[in-house]
């Protein structure tokens, strides 16, 4: 399936030109364009973003993973809570998960204070939320399948038989 292959390549590098994608897949460039349009239109591809190693930037960027426990009542569903939380720009990811807690939420801010305030003032007060456990990210090693850090050093000889 070419859709799958195009997706894999875009996940590797969303900035591959359609010409490169055509060369890599041996598809016609027009076919690649059509495939991408289709994937975008159907919402399979919902956006393109840069993968950032914030540790390399001088500015501070604080991120936290927050475990949320909720208690549902007759009127409220997981979807309702998710919708409410997703609206906050500080929330960069939100997933309902199995296990010891219900939601797995990623939060970003410019300072620890900002993130803490957001959780205590906007998240914790939501009536269905019974517990929050906040884990601040100290160092990121891998994001979106890409290893962060010094980059691969190729110590192979320039010529070998």
């Amino acid at each position, binding site marked *: 399936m070419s859709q799958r292959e195009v997706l894999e*390549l875009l996940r590797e*590098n969303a900035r591959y030109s359609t010409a*490169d994608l*055509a*060369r*890599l*897949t*041996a598809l016609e460039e027009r076919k690649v364009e059509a495939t991408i349009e289709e994937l975008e239109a159907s919402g399979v591809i919902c956006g393109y973003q840069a993968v950032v190693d914030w540790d390399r930037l001088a500015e501070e960027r604080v991120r936290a993973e927050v475990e949320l426990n909720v208690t549902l009542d007759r009127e409220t569903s997981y979807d309702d809570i998710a919708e409410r939380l997703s609206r906050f720009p500080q929330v960069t990811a939100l997933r309902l998960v199995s296990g010891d807690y219900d939601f797995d939420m990623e939060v970003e801010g410019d300072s620890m204070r900002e993130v803490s305030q957001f959780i205590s003032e906007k998240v914790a007060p939501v009536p269905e939320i019974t517990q929050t456990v906040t884990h601040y990210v100290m160092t990121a090693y891998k994001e979106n399948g890409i290893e962060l850090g010094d980059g*691969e050093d*190729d110590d*192979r*000889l*320039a*010529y*070998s*038989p």
Partner: protein
Amino acid sequence: MTFEPARRVRAVGPSGIRRFFEIAEERDDVISLGVGEPDFSTPWAARDAAIHSLERGRTSYTANRGMRQLREAISRYVADRFALEYGPGEQILVTAGASEAVDLAFRAFVDPGDTVAVAQPAYISYEPGVRFAGGEVLPVPTREAEEFRLTVAALEGAGAADAELLVLCYPNNPTGAVMERSDLEPIAEFAREHDLLVLADEIYAELTYEGEHASIAALEGMADRTIVVNGFSKSHAMTGLRLGYAMGPTDAIGAMNRIHQYTMLSAPTTAQHAALEALESCEPDVREMVDQYGRRRRFVLARFREIGMACFEAQGAFYVFPEVPDGWTSEAFAEELLREQGVAVVPGDVFGAGGEGHLRVSYATGLEDLREALARIETFISDHG
């Protein structure tokens, strides 16, 4: 007192890529498409097995022929993948890289004065290996018009009927050519008719992108007269671990082992543990690497076509073999390209007959570098257009 090397050693000059290496060393912006080894790391499970074997203190010699378990795993693997039937007891010899296996074959079967027919362009170590054994290489050229596949006509034209041994390497370094079963049938018949032994270097067998790898040893009557060499360097990205193997009839492997037991004793033990794990659990890693090479191959072939450099559709290994434009020799082109654009490729003439007029371009390099290198080659071509 000076050490005067033996005649056999003096007869072998320095490698044709050495001078280029020195030029490349002088600058730090070189993108190398001159490498003959994977850019991937050894699959983690295999590395872990090597580490574990060290932690357990498994650092003594193994049996001369290699760990029994490893030979059994190799026997199963080649049966599954390539329809080759070799018993782990006496028909498989584990060596320090395919390099050692090739060298043992030459030393075991080539007498001084014997000729060894080598399908060329060929891997650069065959000729020195034959010479160190006291033999002479008979080049059998292959041609781009025939997709660098060996033909009986070429064997006859070169007078290969009288050779002692015929060396085949498919998928091929440097051309990337493969031989399908139907291409191998007439070669096998020629070998049987003229009583030729065959050394089949199949180190790139896993790196076959269209169809399945065919081994000449699997053809009727050929197991008796063929030594198959394979290893872990390319398929499992294990070049530095130095592990390969030879397979053949009991007598032949016995003869090679006679040399091996005195010169090497046994292949590196740590590497044997890594290799065992590689065969037992790293098949998905191999498939993933082959997929990546496959994409890069398509990319590189497409770019050469756009740039206007003719390049036949290499189907194996991780090399393509484009033609240099008219008016250039391989060497001049490779040297100027390196000096002006900092792109390292290997001139085709170092691989022997049929190689002049071509470049060996390796795509065992990340896509970003491949993109940049091909862009620089395009600039180079238009600068000199």
